[in-house]
């Protein structure tokens, strides 16, 4: 495993820079959020970079207008404000309109889960998986490392429907050292094959899942990076090999997140596998400290996952 640590946003924006250099029909617009890699786009493609100010609703509306005129648009903002402040703009102008006309708007939300760990509940993003998965005509992408985020650049130009890219705010090590674009359509990857129990996770929590799986022999790990759409048949075929499935996410439980996605899939197929879920109960998080500390408090740290595995088996 490579140890190169990098943020998803920088990796994605670097890849996008290359696309913008060859494709004049790409706009990058931001609601006053930056990234080190973004400086080059601001400098080299001045006429295709717009900062709309701290105005997420207008960010989505302006992006829609550009996309209706045929541009591929990347709209960049802090994840909870992008998805929740502008949700109705997203629903009306992206989800509804794209059923009739192509609208290639890529919403890049930075700060998935508890990324903005000390900024309190306004900056935590524990609802976005559920609410974005809900929208028809949408792709929901939740990568766990920067390499897969970079692979998504190509996909984002080819698939001309609205997308939500849920990026972690922190620089994270590489998990996918051999990702290739043909894996994108499955939407998931069985990173570790186990025999009795499998952890299913998305985004940052896949790092925790892998660490916990090292502690208990024969624990499988599935990373779900496309929460919509994904290859449901193949995911079920993979899941049904396990007696126990443990879903892990930085999201509210039983509310439409990854746990609901897995549960629906198991129910639909009348699976015999038993599902347990780790995530946040029905409360906001006011604690401060490190992300790992918050995970300890809320039963999502490596130790808690190990103990949940042991309880199952």
């Amino acid at each position, binding site marked *: 495993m490579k140890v190169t640590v990098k943020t998803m946003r920088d990796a994605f924006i670097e890849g996008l820079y290359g696309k913008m250099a060859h494709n004049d029909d790409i706009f990058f617009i931001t609601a006053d959020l930056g990234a080190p890699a973004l400086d080059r786009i601001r400098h080299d493609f001045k006429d295709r970079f717009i900062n709309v100010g701290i105005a997420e*609703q207008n960010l989505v509306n302006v992006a829609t207008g550009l996309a209706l005129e045929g541009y591929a648009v990347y709209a960049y903002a802090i994840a909870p404000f992008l998805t929740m402040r502008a949700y109705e703009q997203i629903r009306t102008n992206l989800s509804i309109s794209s059923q009739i006309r192509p609208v290639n708007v890529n919403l890049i939300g930075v700060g998935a889960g508890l990324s903005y760990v000390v900024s309190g509940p306004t900056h935590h993003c524990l609802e976005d998986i559920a609410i974005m998965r809900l929208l028809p005509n949408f792709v929901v992408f939740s990568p766990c490392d920067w390499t897969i985020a970079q692979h998504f650049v190509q996909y984002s130009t080819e698939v001309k429907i609205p997308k939500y890219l849920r990026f972690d705010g922190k620089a994270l090590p590489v998990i996918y050292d051999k990702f290739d674009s043909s894996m994108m359509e499955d939407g998931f990857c069985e990173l570790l094959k186990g025999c009795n129990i499998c952890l299913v996770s998305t985004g940052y929590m896949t790092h925790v899942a892998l660490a916990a799986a090292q502690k208990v022999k024969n624990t499988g790990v599935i990373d779900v990076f496309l929460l919509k759409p994904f290859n449901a048949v193949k995911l079920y075929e993979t899941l049904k090999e396990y007696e126990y499935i443990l879903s892990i996410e930085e999201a509210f439980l039983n509310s439409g997140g990854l746990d609901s996605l897995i549960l629906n899939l198991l129910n639909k197929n009348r699976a015999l596998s038993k599902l347990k879920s780790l995530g946040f109960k029905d409360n906001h998080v006011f604690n401060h400290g490190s992300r790992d500390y918050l995970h300890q408090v809320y039963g999502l740290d490596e130790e808690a996952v190990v103990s949940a595995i042991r309880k199952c088996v």
Partner: protein
Amino acid sequence: MNDTGNKDLIKYLSKKAQWVMKETLRIHKIAPETRLASSLSCLEIFVSLYYGNILRFNSENLLWNNRDRFIISKGHGAVSLYPILADLGYFSIDELSKVCTKESFLGGIPDIIIPGIETTNGSLGHGLGVASGIAIALKRRKNDAVVFVLSGDGELYEGSVWEAIMFSAEHKLDNLVLIIDNNKICMLDYCANIIDISPVENKFSAFNWEVRTIDGHNIEELCNTLLYLKNNRNGHPKLLVANTTKGKGIKQLEGDRLCHIKSLNENEINEILERLE
């Protein structure tokens, strides 16, 4: 245009407006849930834009690159646009007798699914922001088409409108014309009794917009001012405040603060239609 030509055009547009009014009433008869009062305040605006040589359009090529983009941000009031779109060939005139029925794609609010309609409407406060994005795209492609937006004055309560007002002035979108159908009534009351933001003109001027105010039922004024605003590329987005009457021409609606949600019954409509004949 010379004076006689101009008079002929105004006469022609007034006749068209009469016809659109009758058709709007006929639609309301089969679909009483449509918003009649709101559709009548902006009727002359539609007539002037489509028949008064203001909008550049091609009903046989919906996404024609050089068309002016017209966004109906006040979706509820656009039932009076249906007869015009049908008359201009966007869809069959027979569709007008099916509005809101199971055979029709024409609902109470015009959506992007309808030929000639650019965006998803019905939720207020979106049109101007989307139009700003379109205006930027047109400028970048050196396309001289203009983006027109129709909003209601009540719609100005939506905060997202003000985000777009600031944005479009900053970006000098002089290919953007916002028309406010200033009919002064929301759903429950006169706007002045809810939050009085009149005069709205100086708010826009303060944000660097060019502003004109006219009688929104006067077709000649509408045509002249819309044409002026369309062609005046001076680095400012344009606002046309069209002072109108909600429920214009219908005594049961005019002056009723609740007229937005008021429907007329079949007899009432038949009486009005007879009078108009």
